[in-house]
């Protein structure tokens, strides 16, 4: 199970790299609120490092890793019992590549066709605002989608850490401000570019020439884009097909789990206890939605401990962190393999992130801490 933890860490790290890039890019855009020239001046510092050499490699690798690990996570799921946040996160994440590919390809090609053209904010903005507004729409959606996807990911990772108490007040305003300022900068700079187009015929002519040059390769570009999007869609479909096949395969092995208070939940072989709860609307705390990070879903196994999958490293680490007592498992990690499992939920369903940051302050945690101090 060491591999599982490694994969999570790699996805998180690649996501953080991507987020750093997007933050730089958006910060650069937001300078458009001051002026186009300012934007251009800061470009060398904020955006340019990501477009060449090591920066480009890092970015490309992070993008590839994040995308493929995301699809892997979909394929590795056992059910579609997702929280609202997860559904949003997944949908946004899946929508990003097809929307972003036009921008990536166009910027790269433009650089190849007429060096120096694409790396100039004024010219790119002129194309977006005047000659090909369709790409501008795509771009706008990408900005909002990427940022929301990233913000959800960052928040749900950081909020479980004790450090959140100190940095939370700082992170949330930044999460809000960055895209708002970027979009405002985009609008402001766009207006400036439109004015310049109207007042500076030479500049306009120069852009028209460049656009003409790019238009010649549009066809190949479109073909490439289409191929890329189809490949991507095929990958997504494959991931979902694996998930669907797994659901169908285990459909014939229905199992049930008994809870404290007389509740029962039906499900399939191989689902985690938390998935049983979610599929049957049994109240069950889960702050991290089954990523094994928060420990709020932990249960005491009353019977049938041998009919659950063995705990992995991730689960053991988290259980140790929240001072879990003997016989306790993470409901999101313990998968049900056979009939006869009975569990007691240790935390109330409304437990929030503070239960992960400070487990000793919550009822289940207190009991565990007391048990620990006794031994």
């Amino acid at each position: 199970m060491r591999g599982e933890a490694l994969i999570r860490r790699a996805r998180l790290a690649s996501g953080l790299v991507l987020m750093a890039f997007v933050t730089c890019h958006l910060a650069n855009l937001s300078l458009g609120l001051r002026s186009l020239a300012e934007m251009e001046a800061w470009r060398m510092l904020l955006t340019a490092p990501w477009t060449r050499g090591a920066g480009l490699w890092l970015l490309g690798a992070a993008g590839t890793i994040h995308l493929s690990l995301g699809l892997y996570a979909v394929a590795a799921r056992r059910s579609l019992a997702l929280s609202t946040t997860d559904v949003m996160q997944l949908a946004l994440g899946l929508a990003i590549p097809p929307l972003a590919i036009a921008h990536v390809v166009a910027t790269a090609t433009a650089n190849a066709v007429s060096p120096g053209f694409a790396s100039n904010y004024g010219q790119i903005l002129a194309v977006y605002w005047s000659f090909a507004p369709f790409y501008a729409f795509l771009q706008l959606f990408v900005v909002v989608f990427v940022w929301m996807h990233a913000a959800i990911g960052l928040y749900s990772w950081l909020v479980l850490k004790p450090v959140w108490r100190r940095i939370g007040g700082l992170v949330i305003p930044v999460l809000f401000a960055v895209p708002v300022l970027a979009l405002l900068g985009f609008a402001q700079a766009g207006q400036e570019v439109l004015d310049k187009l109207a007042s500076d015929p030479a500049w306009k002519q120069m852009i028209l020439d460049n656009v003409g040059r790019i238009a010649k390769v549009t066809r190949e570009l479109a073909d490439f884009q289409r191929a890329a999007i189809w490949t991507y869609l095929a990958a997504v479909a494959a991931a979902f097909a694996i998930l669907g096949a797994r659901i169908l395969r285990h459909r014939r092995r229905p199992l049930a789990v008994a809870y404290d208070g007389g509740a029962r939940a039906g499900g399939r072989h191989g689902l985690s206890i938390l998935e049983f709860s979610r599929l049957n609307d049994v109240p069950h705390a889960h702050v991290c939605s089954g990523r094994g990070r928060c420990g709020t879903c932990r249960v005491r196994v009353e019977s049938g401990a041998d009919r659950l999958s063995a705990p992995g490293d991730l689960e053991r680490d988290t259980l140790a962190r929240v001072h879990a007592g003997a016989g306790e498992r993470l409901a999101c990690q313990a998968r049900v393999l056979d009939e006869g499992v009975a569990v007691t939920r240790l935390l109330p369903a409304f437990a929030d992130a503070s239960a992960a940051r400070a487990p000793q302050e919550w009822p289940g945690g207190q009991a565990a801490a007391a048990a620990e101090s006794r031994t």
Partner: protein
Amino acid sequence: MSDQGMSGWSLELLGAAKQRLEALGLDLARAPEEARRAAEAAHATLMSGAGVRSATYLLLILFIGIAVEWLYWTYAYSPLRAAQSAPALTPLHALRLGLRLLLLRGSGLLLFTAAALGASAAFTWPPHVHPLVVFATLFLLVLRAAWMGVGILIAPGRPHRRLVPVAPRAARWLAAALLAAIFLLACGSFLPAMVESGGVAAHHIASALRLAAYTAAAALLVALSLALFGRPGSRGAAGAARAPLFPRSFPLAMLVVFVYAVWLLSPRAAPVAAILAVVVGLQIGLHDMVYFYWHSEDETAGKPADREALPAIALSLARFVVALAGIGAAALALDTPVSALAESSSPWVGVGLRLLGVAVLALLAHGVWIAVRSVVDQRLSRIAPADPHQPPDASSRLLTLLPLLRVTTAVVLLVLLVLSSLWALGIEITPLLAGAGVVGLALGFGAQALVRDVIAGVFYLAEDAFRVGEYVEGAGNTKGTVERITLRSVALRHHNGPLHFVPYGALGSVRNTSRDWVIDKFNLPLPIEVESEKIRKMIKKIGEQLKEDTALGQHLMEPLKGKLYRVDPGVKVFRCKFRCPPGKQFDLRAAALKRIEAALKEMGLGYAAGVNTVIVKG
């Protein structure tokens, strides 16, 4: 004259309807062409700097709205989970939880809307775009509110959380159909407005869109009411045991058709018709909806909910609130200030307003009546019927007064309602009252006795002179147990059987022998030779034994005592007395006498013989 006015008005209405239908047909015919042109114009606008700017701002306000709501949820998610996961023990508890959910989720929704709309005001939008954005935000608000409301009310998949009586199997269908209908209605009202707010002429498209959306919504609602409320078996749990009183499906479907027809003929009247239909529909279902909350509790307690006071009051209150809300909404929809309405000279408006007033009065009177009646009935059913052998307690006074209060309330309410309805209808009641005054004068002389009886009765009751179950003696040798009390007279059951109906006026001074305590005295004639002190002690001892030994003796309030009272020739008369609650004296006296006789026998004594021995000294 009025006949002609009526027919003329009908003709006018039909003519207007015909024109309206023709216009609709024209709209339908012209819409596609207009739509093509409008789409071209919209595309041209979108694919320009203005379009990009609009999209940027739109995404900005969306992001701001989502961000603000998300921030709210980082605080409110835990309470939401708590409200969602708490088990609903009773329907009333489910209602409380539902209201909490509504508050939590509604706040999020309102924050989103307020943030998005507020942010939208900060931007300089290209022409014609801002109204479009506002409409779109409101559209989103309506859809999300409908999603939330239907989810909380019908709670598909969570039968314990359901707030309306819907069969579990029907819940999903009902929820889905309601959402679809609300979506269509929202489309019908927002999309045309959005289309028309754009710069291009789009009247025909708007009209065609409205027609399509409203027609689909009406069809859906008709199908829904026929399918879900039709079969007796599919009624909610609350109605399962009751006999069907009133068909539901058909009137509901007719209401939908009625609103649709009104809209088709005269769109301006449609909102009022819709409000009317909703009010009528709610009134039809309100009984089940209100009793739903008391039903399952009473199922376990095993008593019928219909006798309870609370649901009856709640039902009447709910009817009242629904009607008032409907009137308020109609006034809002008509967009006519109430003051202007009152000054309107149209006879229809006047009659309508007055009928409205009467309806409000009737509802009020009904509410008060239901409240009084249910409270009285409930108290009465809790008090056991009066036991003549028990001393009357506080409940007997209630037993006396409550039925009287019920009748009096009914009469007073009815009179008030009739008088105020006449007044509300604009009929002068002053001459009526004055006329009644003249007749009343005549009647008054005749009914002097009646008035005297009633007034006297009020004072008797106010002073608590007697209650049902008490033994009273009035003037003129009327005595007996009080059986019934009316406004005018009291019915006394004589201990031999006859029932006296005594008007209060003739009751005179009342001797109530059933209050607090009585003192019973009786004589013991004993032979002259007995030792007085010995007898006194014997009687005292018997008194103590009586108090301690027997169940009857507990009632003694003062113990039995006896002393020499009189000395007659050959006879010593001892007088005994005791104090006890009213009605107990007879049994107690019998018991005492029995014991005294036994004691006398033991002492070798007997009562004084009734023979005077005359000794003649010869």
